[in-house]
């Protein structure tokens, strides 16, 4: 679950008491002009999930309402990172003294929360990280101990933040609380600005929530940017299948993410191109019939590999689903099976008797045959 800037600020930062600028979300140049009239000199920012808005020309300053309408008419309708800009955030123009970087995220390798802070915030933080890793302070948190203001102060020691220190300490502690309470994978503020009047304010915010916590965080789930999906991907999601449409011509139906990725890899290795990723791991193995319907609805598919290796998933149940779907859909594309593991004997017998096909012993051979058939 990803939030755009305006949603991250209103749904996550504001309720936590983290300082943000006075702003309004607008969808037309007229609304922007009105907002600038009310707020004063402002920054007009495209609301899209991409992180490269500034470099793409999606962030402009407007001193007057007229200027606001003018820059808004340029930004609205732009395409940034593949997304058309439909809304802009009009935020009071801040008099910035210094730009910092702050984030709290899951550090997968340490299985711990990680707090990051740098005095060199702004657009090029990734380069700072690579060129001068010392410029970024890292604090690995013991989740049973937590992270509050004392830990934040210890983390910032020696950075000479001066009058900004109290504000930074406050926001770091709040970001950690957000991280724990809002099922966060990443909450990032870049820039975290020290203003000329001494306030410390979050000028931007990026938020990624944990998909597994959708039910625990209904407000975030509702505000999240929907995934960009094709019609088939949307149909897959509706029945709980993760289907990704690709531009190749060899359809893939396998069980488990690991085996599915491997089938795609072997298709590439054999000189072909996979038409989809589709995960029917875990309990989803019972949805083979629906899954096959999805794979075959992709107009690019010229041949199909069915690669089952049953551990938890029973290949006889999956094969039954495939055979049923095949008899209903009567597709014209050739299909190549490889079936092993739990339920193998029954599954192979089903494919033989009902479809008159002989599964390949090695998945590599099934893939090769499918790649040749697609060419």
């Amino acid at each position, binding site marked *: 679950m990803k939030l755009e800037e305006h949603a991250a600020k209103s749904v996550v930062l504001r309720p936590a008491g983290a300082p943000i600028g006075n702003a309004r979300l607008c969808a037309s140049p007229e609304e922007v002009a009105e907002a600038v009239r009310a707020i004063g000199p402002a920054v007009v920012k495209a609301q899209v999930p991409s992180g490269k808005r500034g470099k793409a020309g999606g962030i402009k300053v407007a001193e007057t309402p007229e200027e606001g309408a003018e820059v808004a008419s340029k930004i609205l309708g732009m395409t940034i990172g593949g997304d058309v800009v439909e809304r802009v955030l009009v935020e009071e123009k801040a008099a910035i003294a210094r730009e910092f970087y702050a*984030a709290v*995220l*899951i*550090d*997968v*390798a340490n*299985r*711990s*929360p*990680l707090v*990051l802070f740098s005095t060199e915030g702004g657009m090029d*933080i*990734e380069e700072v*990280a*690579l060129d001068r*890793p010392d410029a*970024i302070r890292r604090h690995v948190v*013991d*989740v*049973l101990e937590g992270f509050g203001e004392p830990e934040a102060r210890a983390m910032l020691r020696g950075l000479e933040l001066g009058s900004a220190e109290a504000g930074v300490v406050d926001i770091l502690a709040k970001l950690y609380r957000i991280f*724990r309470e809002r*099922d*966060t*994978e*990443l909450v*990032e503020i*870049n820039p975290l600005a020290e203003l000329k009047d001494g306030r410390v304010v979050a000028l931007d915010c*990026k938020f*990624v929530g*944990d998909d*597994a*916590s959708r039910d625990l965080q209904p407000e975030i789930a509702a505000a999240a940017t929907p995934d960009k999906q094709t019609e088939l991907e949307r149909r897959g999601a509706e029945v709980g299948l993760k289907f990704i449409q690709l531009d190749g011509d060899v359809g893939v139906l*396998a*069980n*488990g*993410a*690991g*085996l599915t*990725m*491997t089938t*795609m*890899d*072997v*298709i*590439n*290795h054999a000189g072909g191109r996979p038409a989809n990723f589709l995960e029917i*791991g*875990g309990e989803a193995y019972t949805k083979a019939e629906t899954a096959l319907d999805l794979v075959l609805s992709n107009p690019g598919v010229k041949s199909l590999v069915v690669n089952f*290796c*049953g*551990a*938890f*998933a029973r290949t006889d149940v999956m094969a039954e689903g495939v055979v049923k779907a095949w008899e209903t859909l009567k597709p014209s594309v050739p299909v190549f099976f490889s079936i*092993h*593991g*739990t339920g*193998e004997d029954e599954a192979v017998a089903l494919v033989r008797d009902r479809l008159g096909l002989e599964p390949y012993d*090695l*998945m*590599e051979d099934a893939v090769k045959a499918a790649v040749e058939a697609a060419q």
Partner: protein
Amino acid sequence: MIYRSGQKVLVQGITGKQGTFWSQKMMEMGTSVVAGVNPKRAGETHLGVPVFASAVEATRQIACDISVIFVPPMLARDAIVDAIDAGIGCVVVLTEHIPAQHVLEIHARAKRAGCRIVGPNTAGIVTPGEGFVGIMPGHNPNIFKPGHVGVISRSGSLGTLICLNLTRAGLGQSAFIGIGGDPMIGTTTRDALEALDRDERTHAIAMIGEIGGTMEEEAAEYARTMRKPIASFIAGRSSPPDKKMGHAGAIVTGGRGGYASKREALEQAGVRVVDTPHEIAIALAGVYA
């Protein structure tokens, strides 16, 4: 994390459909399943073993070496903390989609208690000829047979395929360690590699990785010090990289985690990296020739 016959297994969620089905399979293979947990059915007997209200209650009466978790995602944290509090030394977590904040707490608590977590989202561990814990076809002699190849896999289905290929090539397995498909797992590729290096019955290792994370790179640092031959397949070469974490992700991983980075690190450590799963068996058969 290598199952040994005689090790006593507690099944948390034993009365559910999957808990029942797989407990039976484990018992058929000779795994010593000694008790189960379901708070609503304490006092009953299920599959011939007593059911307790909690792992803490169970271990008061019956010593358990390993607990296996067949509990849905939202209840998994409490079940695992229960097993940790019961003093069980190893917890095999099959559950997928446990909220990440819960997973952080699970690992922190396990670390304090000195408890080994395998998973989450693992298919389990198998020692052919001795027993298995989890949802692997450990009881199927066409897939697993006793031998000397140690197998490490994030994925259950792909791990099963590798073991099947090895068995057909005449190479039995000393142990299968399913480490799990989640990003934050308790037993890493490197942990499993170290265990197999110490295991006298293991003469060679098949290491099945996946793109994402930096576990294969970390395992490569240890592989460099090993004398046992290792063959590796990394799944996901043709999958697009996950961009979700953006800047912060790049700050943490520093460009590692992709297919090329993993393959290079492993090859530099002397690991034979192959292009298709079947080549694992061919590469390791060559070692024995």
